[in-house]
């Protein structure tokens, strides 16, 4: 494997067991870092506000992203639109630590994703099933996250996507070797990637949960379902007490199998983000980019 791809997969390994938080200002970035975030996602508007504002949503202003890079020492990620090669080039030019080719923004291309192998900086991409995850990995993504449904505070879709990916992995593991070729065909991915999943029982890259995590219990749920870490977008800075909630979610991910600690962490967190139920959503971001 090319050195850069391996190094980029390995950076994701270092983020495991951690929480990546959406931030819109240097001040929020500092709060996230002090609370124990393992990375921040710099963006102008968090998904809940993107939903509320409507219209076309694009890459953030590089100056705003640079302000956040200067404010913290942890890795800084930023989003580009699906298929928007130039937004990705701009993010690479400002030495972003990870690009999220994200369905949260309006897609720039409804057929092609970015050929991520052409870049030195790493990419994380969303997926809602094993085929999507492996297609993004084949395009060069070095980290995967469930799509969930961003900006809703409703964890149901993140749960659905994580369960589906995990159950599809188990199905591939249980196959006879001569069945893997047909599985590759059905998943629309290269045989080698299916073979890796069959032999190792996991994706070849780190897999986080994202999209709808609002409470420490939500974060721990995603970890118990097989996530290796959690992205929290609107859940923190749309809540009543962001500092306390951020710290609680960080500790919930570390102690995700310890209900006693989770109970303590869930106390007195103030208002959670209001949230929108799955049935009330007009725009399904998870349906962008397949």
């Amino acid at each position: 494997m090319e050195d850069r791809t391996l190094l980029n997969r390995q950076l994701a390994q270092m983020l495991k067991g951690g929480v990546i938080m959406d931030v819109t200002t240097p001040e929020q970035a500092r709060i996230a870092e002090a609370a124990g975030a393992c990375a921040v996602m710099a963006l102008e508007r968090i998904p809940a506000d993107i939903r509320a504002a409507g219209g076309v949503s694009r890459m953030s202003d590089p100056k705003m992203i640079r302000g956040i890079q200067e404010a913290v020492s942890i890795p800084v990620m930023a989003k580009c639109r699906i298929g928007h090669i130039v937004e990705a080039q701009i993010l690479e030019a400002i030495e972003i630590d990870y690009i999220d080719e994200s369905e949260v923004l309006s897609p720039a291309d409804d057929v092609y994703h970015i050929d991520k192998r052409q870049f030195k900086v790493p990419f994380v991409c969303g997926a809602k099933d094993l085929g999507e995850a492996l297609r993004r990995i084949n395009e060069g993504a070095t980290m995967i996250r469930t799509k969930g449904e961003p900006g809703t505070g409703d964890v149901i879709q993140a749960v659905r996507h994580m369960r589906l990916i995990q159950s599809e992995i188990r199905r591939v593991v249980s196959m006879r070797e001569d069945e893997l070729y047909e599985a590759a065909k059905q998943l629309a991915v290269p045989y080698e990637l299916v073979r890796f999943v069959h032999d190792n029982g996991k994706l070849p890259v780190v897999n986080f949960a994202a999209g709808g995590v609002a409470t420490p219990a939500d974060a721990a749920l995603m970890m118990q379902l097989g996530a290796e870490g959690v992205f929290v977008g609107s859940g923190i800075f749309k809540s009543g007490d962001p500092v306390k909630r951020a710290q609680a979610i960080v500790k919930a991910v570390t102690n995700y199998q310890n209900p006693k600690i989770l109970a303590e962490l869930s106390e007195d967190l103030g208002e959670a983000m209001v949230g929108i139920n799955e049935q009330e959503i007009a725009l399904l971001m998870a349906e962008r980019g397949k």
Partner: protein
Amino acid sequence: MTIAILALQGAFIEHEQVLHRLGHETLEIRNLADWQRYCSEVPEADRRLVIPGGESTAMTRIMRDENLLEPLREAILHGMPVLGTCAGLIMLDPQHLATMDIHVRRNAYGRQLGSFTANATVAGLPSANEKPFPMVFIRAPYIESVGDGVEVLASVDSHIVAARQGNQLAVAFHPELTDDTRLHELFLSL
């Protein structure tokens, strides 16, 4: 032997896998109760700790809130062997656990675009000179200077990337991400 692995955040599973391959057991330390359990199950002379790579700010935050800082510091100062890799190296410096007399520069090679691999000799390993050690540096720190009593084990481009002080072993790279187990074996022999 059962080795304690600080499992607050980061690449701790990779260390567990190496130690399991070498025939040892591990116990994840996620909170103070885990550490107390480790201390009650393993006699003091047999205790060992690995502090993995990850984000030192995240680990520090959880360590402080979980009241893990003091007991770990005390155990290390009492001579418990410890292996710190990348963020784990930072955790041993005077700003964190304050058990090693080293001055560390965080993110010394810049952002992810500055991450790299190298091969270099690590003093004290078997066939150190004939077989350079494969080193993976990910948003890595290096050691700017060391105090008396700290032995420099390896340098890359004249920056210190591995050091030892008594039973403390600190490296800026990730031996848990390669197949070379000599550093873990050195740690187990302390």
